[in-house]
């Protein structure tokens, strides 16, 4: 049944309203990042003004923002690669093992995500201090992986459940071992799942604030801490915060625009079989 003209019109109207509502905050980040500070809070808000790149310039001159971006990239990519490797393998095991206790193992892995992060900040600080890892990207990679591995296991399990075991058995009959079968037959079939897991791991690591604040110093400070640091004791420097925020949301937007199809497919396949 094709929708009538009136229905089409209503649909578009609603979608446009929804888009406006959901996109306005992002638009405001951009607009505010280009605003000079004295008119930041003028009433009524000003949408037409001479834009300035001063806030962006300040980011890179008042803070080593380019280095902080590199730190964030290193941490996010490192944790993603590590979590994906370990997590995918575990997900495969959880999906294939028939033993009835496997659900308990799966639950234990998932429970890693449930503990309030605040409670383990200080223990992690102490452990990294002792190991000399404080203010290194490795410290954050380790911590983020404890959150990313469970997520990867959760997402990937659904994908492995979808791959018929008959395929694997056929490969094994052909003389491939368990490991070879996994890499040659099973893994390629779950590519969308890998993509969605990678994106979520990356975004989580890139966006995290609490651990990044406590475990980093000048050498490894990440972008979220850098942006929040414009919240000082006498003022919240909105222009610079908005400029930094805009830079931070760029990777997320890139992922959405490029991997949207995979993201959607990946997430539902993973969750349908929950």
């Amino acid at each position, binding site marked *: 049944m094709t929708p009538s003209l009136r229905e089409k019109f209503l649909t578009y109207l609603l979608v446009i309203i929804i888009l406006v509502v959901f996109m306005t905050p992002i638009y405001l980040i951009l607009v505010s990042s280009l605003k000079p500070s004295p008119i930041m809070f003028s009433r009524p*808000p000003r949408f037409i003004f001479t834009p300035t790149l001063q806030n962006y310039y300040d980011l890179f001159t008042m803070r080593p923002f380019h280095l902080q971006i590199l730190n964030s990239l290193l941490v996010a990519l490192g944790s993603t690669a590590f979590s994906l490797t370990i997590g995918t393998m575990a997900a495969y095991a959880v999906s294939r093992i028939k033993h009835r206790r496997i659900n308990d193992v799966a639950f234990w892995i998932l429970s890693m995500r449930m503990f309030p992060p605040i409670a383990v900040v*200080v*223990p992690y600080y102490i452990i990294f201090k002792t190991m000399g890892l404080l203010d290194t990207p490795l410290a954050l990679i380790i911590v983020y992986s404890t959150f990313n591995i469970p997520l990867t296991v959760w997402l990937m399990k659904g994908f492995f459940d979808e791959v018929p075991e008959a395929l694997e058995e056929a490969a094994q009959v052909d003389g491939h071992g368990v490991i070879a079968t996994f890499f040659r037959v099973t893994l390629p079939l779950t590519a969308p799942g890998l993509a969605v897991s990678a994106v979520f791991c990356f975004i989580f690591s890139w966006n995290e604030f609490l651990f990044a604040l406590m475990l980093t110093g000048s050498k490894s400070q990440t972008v979220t801490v850098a942006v929040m640091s414009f919240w000082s004791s006498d003022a919240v420097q909105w222009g610079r915060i908005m400029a930094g925020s805009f830079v931070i949301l760029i990777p997320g937007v890139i992922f959405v625009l490029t991997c949207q199809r995979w993201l959607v497919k990946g997430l539902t396949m993973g969750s349908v079989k929950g």
Partner: protein
Amino acid sequence: MSHTANRDRRIAAVFLIPAIVVLFATTIYPMLYALWLSFRNYDLAKPFIPRIFVGLANYAEVLTSKAFFHALITTFKLMAMTLSAQLVLGVGIALLVSQKLPGMALARTLLLIPMMISPVIVGLVWLFLYFPELGYLNYFLGLVGIGPVPWISSTQWALTAIAIGDIWQWTPFIMMGTAAALQSLSPEPYEAARIDGNSRWDVFRYVTLPQLKPVLVSLLFLRAIDAFKIYDIIFVLTKGGPADATEVISLYIYRQSFTFWRMGVGAAASFVSLIIISVLITLFFKQMQRGQAARAR
């Protein structure tokens, strides 16, 4: 049988052991340390206070504390608000943008952006929007004659304001999952339902929704785990205020552990909250398994 067991063992050895070792190695020390703290009077900022063993006193304090229960209730209130709104809006928007019309794919894509944003930044942006007089939100509402609403500066509104920020960020998550599930639904039941002359709502209610249920349950489950730990957005927006209107579990733990530096009480509260969420999730799983079993029959 033994063949399966053998295979299980091989898979476990190669695939599962690394994850268990890694997770165990990276979390066992912090967890044990937190557990040790929870039995101690441990003030990180005041080393002159004896850091003595206090038995279950910290747990007793948490469990008898009005503030803790207030935080627990606030957390559940917030979860109820955000999860229900995200469910309704997410499914509704998914139904809209899943129609086969030009431009809808782009709309679906754009709507995913909020969930990619750092929660701290979501907090900052909404703080910026919420300023009662200077914020954009009240300005826009004023244009249509509403307000001004004292979003984060009133005890009546603050929790709603936090919820709105969270709903804005995570409705896309539900929308994305639902939209994908809608695309994979088989068309036959629809044809049948339509031939029978059912209303649109009935088709949705009796045909679409039952098919979506497993996806929705699973999406909500993921959201619930995170919603229980909600922290960054409140840390930025209200830090638990005004008064104690938005003080959730994480904020309670934060205040005990950091502002008051009573690490023991904070750790005890963490374990209590871990137990609560674990029990809830176990119950949830049991319910789901029972549901699946019922359907299988």
